[in-house]
Protein backbone atom coordinates (compact mmCIF):
# COMPACT_ATOMS: atom_id res chain seq x y z
CA UNK A 1 0.00 0.00 0.00
CA UNK A 2 2.78 2.35 0.91
CA UNK A 3 4.62 1.53 -2.29
CA UNK A 4 1.57 2.42 -4.34
CA UNK A 5 1.27 5.78 -2.65
CA UNK A 6 4.90 6.61 -3.12
CA UNK A 7 4.84 5.74 -6.77
CA UNK A 8 2.31 8.43 -7.40
CA UNK A 9 4.06 10.96 -5.28
CA UNK A 10 4.82 14.11 -7.27
CA UNK A 11 8.51 14.33 -6.48
CA UNK A 12 9.84 16.82 -8.97
CA UNK A 13 10.32 17.46 -12.65
CA UNK A 14 13.15 15.04 -13.14
CA UNK A 15 12.55 11.41 -13.75
CA UNK A 16 15.65 9.42 -14.43
CA UNK A 17 16.25 5.78 -15.12
CA UNK A 18 15.72 4.74 -11.55
CA UNK A 19 12.37 5.25 -9.94
CA UNK A 20 11.97 6.97 -6.62
CA UNK A 21 10.84 3.67 -5.19
CA UNK A 22 14.08 2.05 -6.23
CA UNK A 23 16.04 4.82 -4.58
CA UNK A 24 14.00 4.58 -1.42
CA UNK A 25 14.62 0.86 -1.32
CA UNK A 26 18.32 1.51 -1.68
CA UNK A 27 18.41 4.07 1.11
CA UNK A 28 16.46 1.73 3.33
CA UNK A 29 18.87 -1.06 2.55
CA UNK A 30 21.81 1.07 3.47
CA UNK A 31 20.14 2.00 6.71
CA UNK A 32 19.40 -1.61 7.59
CA UNK A 33 22.80 -2.93 6.66
CA UNK A 34 24.79 -0.16 8.22
CA UNK A 35 27.85 1.06 6.41
CA UNK A 36 29.98 -1.97 7.01
CA UNK A 37 29.37 -3.57 3.63
CA UNK A 38 30.06 -7.09 2.48
CA UNK A 39 26.40 -7.90 2.14
CA UNK A 40 24.56 -9.68 -0.62
CA UNK A 41 23.11 -8.47 -3.83
CA UNK A 42 19.87 -6.80 -3.00
CA UNK A 43 21.23 -3.84 -1.17
CA UNK A 44 24.27 -1.66 -1.67
CA UNK A 45 27.18 -1.96 0.67
CA UNK A 46 27.51 1.74 1.34
CA UNK A 47 31.26 1.52 0.95
CA UNK A 48 33.25 3.83 -1.28
CA UNK A 49 33.39 3.62 -4.22
CA UNK A 50 29.77 3.01 -4.99
CA UNK A 51 29.44 0.53 -7.83
CA UNK A 52 27.08 -0.14 -10.64
CA UNK A 53 27.08 -3.70 -11.87
CA UNK A 54 25.47 -4.80 -15.10
CA UNK A 55 25.67 -7.80 -17.36
CA UNK A 56 24.88 -9.11 -20.78
CA UNK A 57 25.19 -12.67 -22.06
CA UNK A 58 28.98 -12.40 -22.42
CA UNK A 59 30.30 -10.17 -19.64
CA UNK A 60 29.75 -8.67 -16.25
CA UNK A 61 30.49 -4.93 -16.12
CA UNK A 62 31.45 -3.09 -12.97
CA UNK A 63 31.63 0.69 -12.99
CA UNK A 64 32.72 3.01 -10.20
CA UNK A 65 33.13 6.76 -10.03
CA UNK A 66 36.53 7.57 -8.53
CA UNK A 67 37.57 10.96 -9.90
CA UNK A 68 41.11 12.27 -9.75
CA UNK A 69 43.10 9.07 -9.36
CA UNK A 70 46.45 8.20 -10.82
CA UNK A 71 46.73 4.74 -12.34
CA UNK A 72 49.37 3.62 -9.88
CA UNK A 73 47.11 4.55 -6.96
CA UNK A 74 44.43 2.11 -8.00
CA UNK A 75 44.51 -1.67 -7.72
CA UNK A 76 41.97 -4.09 -9.07
CA UNK A 77 42.10 -7.81 -8.43
CA UNK A 78 39.81 -10.77 -8.92
CA UNK A 79 39.85 -13.86 -6.78
CA UNK A 80 37.26 -16.50 -7.50
CA UNK A 81 33.95 -14.70 -7.49
CA UNK A 82 35.18 -11.65 -5.69
CA UNK A 83 36.37 -8.35 -7.11
CA UNK A 84 38.55 -6.12 -4.97
CA UNK A 85 39.32 -2.47 -5.61
CA UNK A 86 41.84 -0.78 -3.36
CA UNK A 87 43.79 2.42 -3.54
CA UNK A 88 44.26 5.77 -2.05
CA UNK A 89 42.88 9.03 -3.27
CA UNK A 90 45.27 11.83 -2.51
CA UNK A 91 44.35 15.48 -2.84
CA UNK A 92 47.64 17.34 -3.11
CA UNK A 93 48.08 20.30 -0.79
CA UNK A 94 47.91 23.70 -2.34
CA UNK A 95 50.63 26.13 -1.40
CA UNK A 96 50.41 27.32 2.16
CA UNK A 97 49.04 30.83 1.75
CA UNK A 98 45.68 29.87 0.30
CA UNK A 99 42.49 30.32 2.23
CA UNK A 100 39.95 27.56 1.86
CA UNK A 101 36.31 28.49 1.54
CA UNK A 102 34.99 25.02 0.87
CA UNK A 103 36.44 21.57 1.17
CA UNK A 104 33.93 19.00 0.07
CA UNK A 105 36.16 16.64 -1.86
CA UNK A 106 37.42 13.74 0.17
CA UNK A 107 40.80 12.11 0.25
CA UNK A 108 41.56 8.78 1.82
CA UNK A 109 41.77 5.06 1.41
CA UNK A 110 39.65 3.07 -0.98
CA UNK A 111 38.74 -0.46 -0.07
CA UNK A 112 35.88 -2.26 -1.66
CA UNK A 113 35.11 -5.88 -2.19
CA UNK A 114 32.28 -7.02 -4.36
CA UNK A 115 30.74 -10.45 -4.81
CA UNK A 116 30.26 -11.14 -8.51
CA UNK A 117 26.91 -12.49 -9.70
CA UNK A 118 28.43 -15.29 -11.80
CA UNK A 119 31.68 -17.16 -12.30
CA UNK A 120 34.07 -15.19 -14.46
CA UNK A 121 37.13 -16.00 -16.50
CA UNK A 122 39.74 -14.42 -14.23
CA UNK A 123 42.44 -14.54 -16.88
CA UNK A 124 40.58 -12.27 -19.27
CA UNK A 125 39.37 -9.55 -16.91
CA UNK A 126 40.09 -6.06 -18.18
CA UNK A 127 40.05 -2.77 -16.32
CA UNK A 128 39.99 0.72 -17.74
CA UNK A 129 40.15 4.10 -16.03
CA UNK A 130 38.85 7.01 -18.05
CA UNK A 131 37.37 10.40 -17.14
CA UNK A 132 37.47 9.37 -13.49
CA UNK A 133 35.44 6.23 -13.97
CA UNK A 134 36.81 2.79 -13.33
CA UNK A 135 35.28 0.17 -15.58
CA UNK A 136 36.01 -3.51 -15.16
CA UNK A 137 34.88 -5.97 -17.81
CA UNK A 138 34.69 -9.52 -16.53
CA UNK A 139 34.01 -12.17 -19.18
CA UNK A 140 31.64 -14.81 -17.89
CA UNK A 141 33.06 -18.28 -17.65
CA UNK A 142 31.71 -20.73 -20.23
CA UNK A 143 29.49 -22.54 -17.78
CA UNK A 144 27.95 -19.30 -16.56
CA UNK A 145 26.93 -18.16 -20.04
CA UNK A 146 23.35 -18.76 -21.07
CA UNK A 147 23.01 -21.74 -23.41
CA UNK A 148 20.33 -21.99 -25.98
CA UNK A 149 18.65 -25.35 -25.82
CA UNK A 150 17.17 -26.77 -28.95
CA UNK A 151 13.64 -28.03 -28.44
CA UNK A 152 12.71 -31.11 -30.36
CA UNK A 153 9.13 -31.59 -31.33
Amino acid at each position, binding site marked *: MIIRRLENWPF*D*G*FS*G*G*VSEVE*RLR*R*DLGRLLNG*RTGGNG*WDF*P*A*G*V*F*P*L*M*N*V*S*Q*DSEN*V*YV*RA*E*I*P*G*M*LLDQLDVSVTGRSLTVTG*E*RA*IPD*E*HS*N*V*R*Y*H*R*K*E*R*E*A*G*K*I*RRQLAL*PTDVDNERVQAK*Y*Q*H*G*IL*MVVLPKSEKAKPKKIAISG
Partner: protein
Amino acid sequence: MATQTQDIQARDKREVKSDAEQTIPGRVFSPNVDIFEDDQALTIVADMPGVPSENVAIDLRNDVLSLSGVPSVSVPEKEEYVLQEYDTGKYFRQFTLSEVIDQEHIEAKLNNGVLRVTLPKVGPAKPRKIEITEG
Protein backbone atom coordinates in the same frame (compact mmCIF):
# COMPACT_ATOMS: atom_id res chain seq x y z
CA MET B 1 49.52 11.38 17.47
CA ALA B 2 50.10 9.94 14.05
CA THR B 3 47.62 10.96 11.44
CA GLN B 4 45.99 7.94 9.94
CA THR B 5 44.42 8.01 6.54
CA GLN B 6 40.72 7.50 6.78
CA ASP B 7 38.65 5.42 4.44
CA ILE B 8 36.59 7.50 2.08
CA GLN B 9 32.93 7.42 3.01
CA ALA B 10 30.37 6.52 0.39
CA ARG B 11 27.88 9.30 -0.18
CA ASP B 12 25.00 9.72 -2.50
CA LYS B 13 25.26 12.49 -5.02
CA ARG B 14 23.34 15.62 -4.20
CA GLU B 15 20.64 16.29 -6.66
CA VAL B 16 20.06 19.84 -7.82
CA LYS B 17 16.61 21.08 -6.98
CA SER B 18 15.61 23.83 -9.30
CA ASP B 19 12.43 25.71 -9.93
CA ALA B 20 13.16 25.85 -13.61
CA GLU B 21 12.39 22.67 -15.46
CA GLN B 22 14.98 20.97 -17.60
CA THR B 23 14.36 20.83 -21.30
CA ILE B 24 16.32 17.61 -21.60
CA PRO B 25 15.08 14.90 -19.27
CA GLY B 26 17.53 13.46 -16.80
CA ARG B 27 18.82 14.04 -13.34
CA VAL B 28 21.11 16.89 -12.39
CA PHE B 29 23.67 16.60 -9.62
CA SER B 30 25.73 19.10 -7.72
CA PRO B 31 29.44 18.25 -7.94
CA ASN B 32 31.57 18.28 -4.81
CA VAL B 33 33.95 21.22 -4.86
CA ASP B 34 36.96 22.66 -3.13
CA ILE B 35 37.22 26.44 -3.29
CA PHE B 36 40.26 28.34 -2.21
CA GLU B 37 41.91 31.65 -2.94
CA ASP B 38 45.17 33.46 -2.59
CA ASP B 39 46.15 37.01 -3.50
CA GLN B 40 46.23 36.27 -7.21
CA ALA B 41 43.37 33.98 -7.93
CA LEU B 42 40.29 32.12 -6.85
CA THR B 43 40.38 28.41 -7.66
CA ILE B 44 37.48 25.99 -7.85
CA VAL B 45 38.11 22.26 -8.07
CA ALA B 46 35.09 20.11 -8.88
CA ASP B 47 34.63 16.35 -9.11
CA MET B 48 32.79 15.47 -12.30
CA PRO B 49 33.41 11.80 -12.96
CA GLY B 50 32.51 10.60 -16.44
CA VAL B 51 32.70 13.99 -18.10
CA PRO B 52 35.08 14.47 -21.06
CA SER B 53 36.57 17.92 -21.64
CA GLU B 54 34.40 18.68 -24.67
CA ASN B 55 31.29 18.33 -22.50
CA VAL B 56 32.26 20.91 -19.89
CA ALA B 57 30.81 24.39 -20.00
CA ILE B 58 32.07 27.24 -17.87
CA ASP B 59 30.21 30.49 -17.99
CA LEU B 60 30.74 33.72 -16.11
CA ARG B 61 28.29 36.56 -16.39
CA ASN B 62 27.03 39.13 -13.95
CA ASP B 63 29.36 37.74 -11.27
CA VAL B 64 27.71 34.34 -11.46
CA LEU B 65 29.96 31.47 -12.42
CA SER B 66 28.22 28.38 -13.78
CA LEU B 67 29.91 25.04 -14.14
CA SER B 68 28.22 22.26 -16.01
CA GLY B 69 29.27 18.91 -17.36
CA VAL B 70 27.59 16.08 -19.18
CA PRO B 71 28.99 12.57 -18.74
CA SER B 72 29.76 10.73 -21.94
CA VAL B 73 29.63 7.24 -20.58
CA SER B 74 26.30 5.61 -20.79
CA VAL B 75 25.37 2.03 -20.15
CA PRO B 76 24.52 0.22 -23.40
CA GLU B 77 20.96 -0.96 -23.58
CA LYS B 78 21.87 -4.60 -23.96
CA GLU B 79 23.27 -4.57 -20.46
CA GLU B 80 20.91 -5.19 -17.60
CA TYR B 81 21.59 -3.86 -14.15
CA VAL B 82 22.39 -6.30 -11.41
CA LEU B 83 23.19 -3.65 -8.84
CA GLN B 84 22.89 0.09 -9.06
CA GLU B 85 24.41 2.06 -6.23
CA TYR B 86 24.90 5.40 -7.90
CA ASP B 87 22.94 7.42 -10.39
CA THR B 88 24.36 9.23 -13.33
CA GLY B 89 23.35 12.55 -14.74
CA LYS B 90 24.46 16.01 -15.61
CA TYR B 91 26.51 18.11 -13.20
CA PHE B 92 25.60 21.70 -12.53
CA ARG B 93 26.61 24.24 -9.93
CA GLN B 94 26.62 28.01 -9.70
CA PHE B 95 28.60 30.42 -7.57
CA THR B 96 28.26 34.12 -7.02
CA LEU B 97 31.68 35.71 -7.07
CA SER B 98 32.48 38.64 -4.83
CA GLU B 99 35.80 39.46 -6.51
CA VAL B 100 36.35 41.11 -9.85
CA ILE B 101 37.74 38.44 -12.14
CA ASP B 102 40.02 38.89 -15.11
CA GLN B 103 37.74 37.15 -17.58
CA GLU B 104 40.35 36.97 -20.32
CA HIS B 105 42.64 34.80 -18.24
CA ILE B 106 40.32 32.23 -16.75
CA GLU B 107 41.93 28.83 -17.01
CA ALA B 108 40.26 25.47 -16.84
CA LYS B 109 41.76 22.01 -16.78
CA LEU B 110 40.04 18.66 -16.69
CA ASN B 111 41.92 15.63 -15.56
CA ASN B 112 40.40 12.22 -14.81
CA GLY B 113 37.03 13.67 -13.99
CA VAL B 114 38.35 16.56 -11.89
CA LEU B 115 37.75 20.07 -13.19
CA ARG B 116 40.01 22.84 -11.98
CA VAL B 117 39.07 26.42 -12.79
CA THR B 118 41.46 29.24 -11.96
CA LEU B 119 39.95 32.70 -11.88
CA PRO B 120 42.61 35.44 -11.67
CA LYS B 121 41.63 38.50 -9.70
CA VAL B 122 41.78 42.02 -11.10
CA GLY B 123 43.73 44.09 -8.60
CA PRO B 124 42.52 44.39 -5.05
CA ALA B 125 38.83 45.05 -4.83
CA LYS B 126 38.50 48.45 -3.27
CA PRO B 127 35.54 49.02 -1.05
CA ARG B 128 33.72 52.05 -2.28
CA LYS B 129 32.52 54.37 0.37
CA ILE B 130 29.25 56.07 -0.29
CA GLU B 131 28.78 59.48 1.14
CA ILE B 132 25.41 60.14 2.60
CA THR B 133 24.25 63.70 2.61
CA GLU B 134 21.59 64.90 4.89
CA GLY B 135 18.91 67.12 3.66
